[in-house]
Structures are given as C-alpha cells and as structure tokens.
C-alpha cells in the first residue's frame, strides 16, 4: 500500500513557467510533509517542508500548498529554470517521528530552456 501518492510521474515545463506537483496521503497520523529534490547521482536534499497547522509555506520560488481536509499537498515552482530540472519527491512523517520519512515515487521535472 502506497502511503504517499505523487503525480505526475514526469513533467515538462517551459522556462519561466510554473511547475506543479501534487501529492495525496491517507494516514491522518502524518504531521510533517517535506519535499526533496534529487539530481542524478546525488542523494535527495530537503527543499522545503510544512506542518498541517498552516495552509501555505513559501521559500523563494518554491511554495507548498496544504489542504488538510482533502489530505493533499502540492509543490509550486515559480519562474521555473533549467537548473530546476531534477526529480522531486514529496514525503510525510508520522506525529513525533520526523525521522521516519515516507517518500512518494517521485516526479521527473524537465525545464525547457
């Protein structure tokens, strides 16, 4: 059973456009929702994270939107750049277990120059 469902599997966006990746979860015990960025040959790196007490968090060009009632959250990348081309993973952790990260399957993002 996949606990964190991510879509789309792959995404192509023009430079300067908005990239949107969506995730959904079932377990209401999740209370920490990070997004990771992974370049080929590298390990994932934390990009931005949110807890369910807020509906949105913004850091630079990256924004997480969180809908607790729908159990969905999304990553928006504004003014997408070729350097943003990577695989993005949404993830979730249970209450008081920020160490136990459960990853989605990932979205391969390609930004056209």
């Amino acid at each position, binding site marked *: 059973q996949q606990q964190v469902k991510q879509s789309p599997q792959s995404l192509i966006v023009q430079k300067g456009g908005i990239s949107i990746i969506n995730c959904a979860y079932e377990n209401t015990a999740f209370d920490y929702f990070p997004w990771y960025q992974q370049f080929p040959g590298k*390990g994932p790196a934390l990009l931005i994270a949110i807890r369910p007490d807020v509906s949105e968090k913004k850091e630079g060009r990256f924004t997480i939107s969180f809908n607790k009632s729908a159990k969905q959250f999304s990553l928006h990348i504004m003014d997408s750049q070729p350097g943003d081309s990577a695989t993005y993973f949404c993830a979730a952790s249970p209450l008081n277990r920020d160490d*136990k990260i459960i990853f989605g399957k990932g979205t391969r993002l390609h930004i056209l120059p």
Partner: protein
Amino acid sequence: GAGVSQTPSNKVTEKGKYVELRCDPISGHTALYWYRQSLGQGPEFLIYFQGTGAADDSGLPNDRFFAVRPEGSVSTLKIQRTERGDSAVYLCASSLTPSGTYEQYFGPGTRLTVT
C-alpha cells in the same frame, strides 16, 4: 564542510555473495539512517540508529539484511546471500538529532548490482 560519504559508490556482486556497504555521517550527527532506492522509486526506509543502537529497524526486508554502528559514527549495512532483487541504490543519511527541526542529509548512495 564534508557531507555524508558512502563507499563504494558502485558494487557489482554475484547472486549469493555477501556485501558490506559503508556510511560515514557528518561529524557530530547522532542519528543515522539507511534507505533503499529502487529504479524509478522514492527512497524506502530501512533502519535508523540513534548513537550506537538501532532505534527502528522495521524497514529491513528480511534477516539477510543487518546494519551496525559500533562506535556511534560510521555504519555498515550488511547483506547476506544477495539476490537479484537486492539491486538498488542504498542511501545513507544523518541528522544532528533524531527528530524535530534537524533535517536529514543524504549521501550520494552506493549502487548495488547483483548479477
């Protein structure tokens, strides 16, 4: 400063052999994690150490997998009687504390291929 390092970067072994994968965490990080990432998938949690002890090994798939961290720093993931299905990238991560606001820093991984 130095990040998490993993050796070897690539390992090819024959089915049935024993392998050891090494992880050097960031100095001073007390928590250490192992994940397995299959092709086209997200990392899958295997085991987490707090200091020298395994605080959560619920992700280890079976008793062929074992990990140690004898001095609370370097960790070794050991796989006995390897199977082709064990082929994956094995990622190690460390964090300053096991939970809370400290993020996990990942190494580049060891790509294991079982032939």
